[in-house]
């Protein structure tokens, strides 16, 4: 068994046995749903349905119903796409990068963070599929043999790279998540009493039994998938950023975009993980597994990535001035002082200034403060994408094309709808799926559990006397 330093704080609080962990994880699945769950689900479904209505209206009438116009041809669609994809990145970061770094605190949060990734990428996909204008022709995006002669897709285009990156990212994340879920489904199957539950979890667990050979393959698969997902997650947002960076639009044509987008993605993703987990740990009473220490670790990631994002903003400003290119200088001047100055101010305050408050230990271990901050960061990151897209496009080379952008109710409706969809799926996930990777958690109980750590410290003291 692995030994862990005594000065590390325990990751599982209270007196737990293996069986107790099982009981705590299946409680939300086997028990009755609370009225909060039903309330949240109702609100989410209403938003979701409203989104579907707006979506149908868009498909039926055309994207003219959006606020996008001749100058500002990318607006909320791409803003929301980048925002959702960015949110997804934290899940992969937690489950893959932290696995490679052997960070054990990931085990309490990786399952729900990965679920968040999958649902967020689904929301993002809605916007990319819709923004083409004729979504029923979206199969044109794939290199399929077709009836127009040999008209292939253009592999030199970053938009094409995006198709491959996002679809690979979604499917690989899904496989990674599901493989991790199999042993936990088996645990639920083995204790299910109701015949329907037994059958469903039996199907989902695909006959898993926990044989030593299977565990050894399972661990190898997790490790290799983590190794593959790590460069994948960095590539996805880098490629998303090249959608902008390879264009010749001032303000977009910058080499800083890939690292800056990746840092921003992790930043916003961790904020969303915090929003979800702070509610989840309260409703499902998982305080012993998702401890204050876990929250603190995530807040530290937020300071680091928030600071990287801050440095990137300042670097952009400096380089635009230093480049001596007046179009570039104007693009940034316009972002900060132009008609959308308020969006820029919002972005700067939420993303650069507010995370710095987490330097105080008191604040980053305060749950209510963290919750409020996590929402502020998400708002800030949405505005970041808005600032990159809309103010840039509303003031391009030709002043005669300059115009303002105003979202319509359809823009707002589809965005609200994706938020509704995201929460609907997440709430269903928390109700029917094991929200914590209990098998993994059991493997660290003796090295990182509070009771075992105290016992080890006690025997260590006695040995010294």
């Amino acid at each position, binding site marked *: 068994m692995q030994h862990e330093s005594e000065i590390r704080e325990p990751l599982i609080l209270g007196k737990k046995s293996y069986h107790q962990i099982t009981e705590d994880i299946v409680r939300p699945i086997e028990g009755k749903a609370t009225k909060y769950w039903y309330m949240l689900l109702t609100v989410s479904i209403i938003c979701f349905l409203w989104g579907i209505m707006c979506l149908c209206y868009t498909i039926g009438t055309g994207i003219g119903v959006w606020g996008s116009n001749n100058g500002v041809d990318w607006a909320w669609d791409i803003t929301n796409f980048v925002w959702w994809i960015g949110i997804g990145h934290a899940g992969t970061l937690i489950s893959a990068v932290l696995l490679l770094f052997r960070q054990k605190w990931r085990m309490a949060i990786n399952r729900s963070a990965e679920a968040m990734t999958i649902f967020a990428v689904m929301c993002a996909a809605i916007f990319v599929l819709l923004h083409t204008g004729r979504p029923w022709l979206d199969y044109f995006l794939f290199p399929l043999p077709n009836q127009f002669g040999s008209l292939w897709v253009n592999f030199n285009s970053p938009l094409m790279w995006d198709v491959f990156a996002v679809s690979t990212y979604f*499917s690989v994340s899904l496989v990674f998540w599901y493989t991790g879920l199999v042993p936990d489904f088996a645990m639920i199957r083995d204790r299910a009493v109701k015949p329907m539950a037994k059958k469903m979890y039996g199907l989902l667990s695909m006959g898993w039994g926990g044989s*030593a050979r299977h565990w050894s393959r399972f661990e190898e*698969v997790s490790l290799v998938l983590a190794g593959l997902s790590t460069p*994948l997650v960095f590539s996805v947002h880098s490629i998303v950023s090249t959608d902008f960076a390879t264009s010749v639009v001032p303000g977009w044509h910058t080499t800083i975009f890939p690292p800056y987008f990746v840092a921003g993605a992790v930043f916003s993703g961790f904020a969303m993980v915090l929003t979800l987990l702070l509610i989840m740990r309260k409703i499902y009473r998982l305080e012993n597994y998702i401890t204050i220490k876990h929250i603190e670790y995530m807040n530290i990631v937020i300071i680091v990535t928030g600071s990287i994002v801050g440095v990137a903003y300042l670097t952009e400003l400096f380089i635009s001035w230093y480049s001596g290119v007046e179009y570039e200088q104007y693009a940034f001047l316009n972002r900060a002082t132009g008609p959308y100055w308020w969006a820029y101010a919002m972005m700067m305050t939420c993303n650069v200034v507010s995370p710095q408050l987490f330097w105080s230990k008191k604040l980053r271990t305060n749950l209510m403060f963290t919750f409020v901050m996590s929402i502020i960061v998400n708002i800030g990151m949405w505005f970041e994408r808005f600032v990159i897209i809309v103010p840039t496009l509303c003031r391009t080379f030709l002043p005669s094309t300059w115009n303002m952008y105003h979202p319509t109710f359809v823009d707002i409706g589809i965005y609200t709808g994706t938020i509704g969809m995201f929460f609907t799926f997440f709430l269903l996930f928390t109700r029917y799926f094991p929200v914590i990777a209990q098998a993994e958690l059991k493997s660290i109980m003796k090295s990182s559990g509070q009771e075992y750590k105290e016992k080890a410290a006690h025997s260590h003291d006695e040995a010294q006397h």
Partner: protein
Amino acid sequence: MSKVVIHAIYDDEEPLMASVKSLRSNGFQIKDAFTPFPVHGLDVAMGVPRTRIAICAFIYGITGTCLATLMMWYMMVHDWPTDVGGKPSFAYYMNVPAFIPITFESTVLCAAHGMAITFYLRSWLVPGAKAKNPDPRTTDDKFMMVVETKEENKANLESLLRTGGASEIHYK
């Protein structure tokens, strides 16, 4: 000579590990072990050869790289070379920087899915498969060892298991 299959159940992973080691040193073969979570070193102690699934992943990955290269060469250079934005596609090596992202994505796609499919099929984890653990408690908090031996070694084995800390012993 008739054979007996023994299911020994343990309450913790340490006695299971110790038992596996003592049985192996006494010349018994461990058929399988079922644990609720991965017990590190158990596969080595049981003498299970290291899984070669990572090698499969490498081969699938290389296949993905080749497929993507071939596809992009065929579509962009061979079948219908287009000149987009003054960047003609005369030869593969001229455009290769623009092809790297998709080559990479395809490598990851094939490696990840190929390995996952291999894992599920090799372990026969398919929808509708029967649960492989003989005792449902082994996904919760019990640890089980399955040993197959000849009838005459039964007594010897049982005493080894008992001293090793097995809480229950069942004959199948």
